């Protein structure tokens, strides 16, 4: 019944920002249908993809996410009429900005998963998890989070000495 258990060197943390009306219900359907998908995904429920601010994505990366999935209703199916149309434009722009800053877009996945597409949810999550697993941990934002001051590196003898004398 259960898929064969394999041990991996790296278990990526995947954060999924989903809309409550379609993808959350789709994920629920996958669960009630007993479909198997990687447990790496943490689902966060939002009213609509239009509610998902790019800041959430930044914050998730900073706090340790290795991959991020944003998923909502198919165009035209939005519970609030146009939320996903706005989200589509916003994320089209945000992707380009992240790429320009130097983030690998392979870690960021957008998808439309309806309430009836439990199978698609499994497919999307599995694909993203395996892709991110093969890429390894997302280091950039996490490093920033732990660094104190980039400009305060003790890279000269004078600074080293001053630091030692404290």
């Amino acid at each position, binding site marked *: 019944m259960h898929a064969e258990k394999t041990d991996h060197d790296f278990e990526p943390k995947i954060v999924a920002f989903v809309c409550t009306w379609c993808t959350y219900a789709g994920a629920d359907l996958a669960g009630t249908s007993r479909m198997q998908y990687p447990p790496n995904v943490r689902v966060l429920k939002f009213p609509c993809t239009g509610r998902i601010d790019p*800041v959430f994505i930044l914050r998730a990366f900073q706090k340790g996410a290795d991959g991020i999935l944003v998923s909502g209703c198919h165009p035209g199916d939005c519970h609030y009429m146009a939320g996903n*149309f706005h989200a589509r434009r*916003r994320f089209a722009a945000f992707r380009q900005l992240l790429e320009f*800053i130097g983030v690998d877009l392979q870690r960021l996945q*957008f998808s439309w998963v309806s309430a009836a597409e439990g199978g698609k949810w499994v497919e999307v999550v599995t694909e993203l998890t395996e892709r991110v697993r093969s890429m390894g941990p997302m280091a950039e*934002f996490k490093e920033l989070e732990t660094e104190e001051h980039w400009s305060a590196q003790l890279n000269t003898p004078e600074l080293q000495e001053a630091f030692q004398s404290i």
Partner: protein
Amino acid sequence: MDTTVPKLDPTPLVDAAYYAAVTAALRAEATKLLAEGTVTAVIGYVAGRRAGTAMPAVITALERANDLIFSPGCQNNLALYLTKAKKEIRKSGKVAIVAKGCDLRALAGLMAENQLKRENLHLMGLACAGVYGANADRTQPLSAATIARKCRECTVHLPEGVDFIAGDLPQLPELAPLEGEELARLEAMTPQERWAFWKEQFSRCIRCLACRQVCPFCFCEQCLCDRNRPQGIETTPRPAGNMGWHIVRAMHLTGRCGGCAECERACPMDIPLNLLNRKMAQEMKELFDFEAGMTPQDKGPLSSYQEDDDQSFIK
């Protein structure tokens, strides 16, 4: 990063008679407007205390109309003085505002966002040859060496849709598009190199928020980035917060920024912020065929949508 390139040609781009003509036209118009009572105030530039500088001024008295000037030191985007944060000026009734082409794009954007009403404004456009860069030597005349980077590839020397244009545009030589070249250089890099570049740039950020303060579009009464509980962006000048702040700033200006590059000029650490703005403006043009213009447009690209927008990146 230096926003001007000192090695470049120091020969003056325009002669002093041009500035005198623009200044005279501004003064005559301001005097007329204030004498007729058409406007209650003129927002313009007056000479600064040091040579080659200018400072913004709100002129309400007729006798002060002759203090108005135009010089290469007139860098400020005066649209800032009409945004939400400066309510008292707008309340005084119809005001005239001096605007370069780039400032006019900001004004048009603010009108499109219902922050300003066109009928409450008297737009005094400038036939602008360019202004000094942030670190330019102001004892020198405006030249390829002292001109701001944004002005090198300016497409809005002559304003449109204004009530009055001061001066005539002199013949201007073509200047090398330094900012465009820098953008192309960054785009050609690998993502890792770009990350290293921006990490290095943002590492200098001291989070003084001058870029926010000077931006005509950052008019929110409470900025998302100042909020805690829940906190979106760290407020201290730590690496994580700096990166977050600059990404959010660029994102919130996407499809709105008029390209006045005031953020870059005001930055005490010389972070090339306008590169981000330009990149996003370029993306808006490619993705949604939107360009910031000098006349108000219905809706920005991120506050509107079309049913057949590209979704090739969505699975």
